[in-house]
């Protein structure tokens, strides 16, 4: 696994990262956890906690805030 994952997909809307600036998505992500895996576009299992969150992609594993 590479040290820095490729951001192929927008982790908020699930569209191709290169399809636009995704400025609204970036702004919204300040108050939202990611929903899509940025590497494969799979919807992730996301658990929001009072402090922090975790998101699991079945292919690429877990990320946490």
């Amino acid at each position, binding site marked *: 696994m590479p040290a820095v994952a490729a951001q192929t997909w927008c982790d908020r809307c699930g569209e191709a990262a290169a399809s636009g600036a995704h400025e609204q998505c970036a702004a919204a992500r300040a108050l939202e956890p990611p929903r899509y895996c940025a590497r494969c576009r799979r919807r992730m299992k*996301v658990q929001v906690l*009072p402090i922090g969150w975790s998101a699991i992609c079945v292919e690429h594993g877990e990320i946490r805030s």
Partner: protein
Amino acid sequence: MPEILDQARDQVLHNGVGLDEAGVLAVLNLPDEHLSATLQLAHEVRMRWCGPEVEVEGIVSLKTGGCPEDCHFCSQSGLFTSPVRSVWLDIPSLVQAAKQTAATGATEFCIVAAVRGPDDRLMKQMREGVAAIKAEVDIQVAASLGMLTQEQVDELVDMGVHRYNHNLETCRSYFPNVVTTHSWEERWETLRMVRESGMEVCCGGILGLGETVEQRAEFAAQLAELDPHEVPLNFLNPRPGTPLGDRPVVEGRDALRAIAAFRLAMPRTILRYAGGREITLGDLGTRDGLLGGINAVIVGNYLTTLGRPATDDLKLLDELKMPVKALSATL
């Protein structure tokens, strides 16, 4: 000074009697030039009948997503194309969340599940979870699990759940526009059972669902009739994939007017900032609401979205000289 504010000063501030539906509507229709005076009066009412303390709460989703209901604002409905996937929280993580919440100074921890009503699996998870929290964390446990049977109400009481949240969400006349898979009356029935059980009733809703100002006033009056211990006030945060995903957010001044109006309808209730305040009001508006009738906050994150850091809210309360309510030993 508008006549309605003079009336409210006498009736609500001095005598503790909330405004009726017509009075709330008059407040909601006040022009912007009177907003400051309205918030000031609502703040005086809150200080007179509730005091300066602020109740702080954290919430966590025990079961996220996959809900069979069609609440049009909710990203957790399994009927919409929302990106939220179904997930369950395990007991150790639940206890950890309760510890994190208690560490902020919060006295309330509400366990929430996206369900029509609890099934056996969820009730078992609640039994184990509440017991584990009570064994390790000094915090009061509340629950929000949808519509209940009498047996489930009794079981939650036995577990030691002291408050139950079940939002009516909006007024009776507008509810069918927001939810079609169950009725406003079914929700009211659960609230009736909760009240009779001795658990504290927590019931509020969401503003900005497309309701009219008149329906907002109707909602305040219906909540006042219910007389809940706590009213969480949410502002719609439009969620992608939901039927209300493209609705505009509530304008800040309208949100503040609503906060003041709901306080003037319910002078003694715990009126809590819940979801959506970050996008509707921002930092300045959050402060204005706390000086306009709000006397409780959800700190930290929500169920599927994030809130501002708990430390920011606690710092603001300190600046406003509003002490965080201490853990009650009366329950």
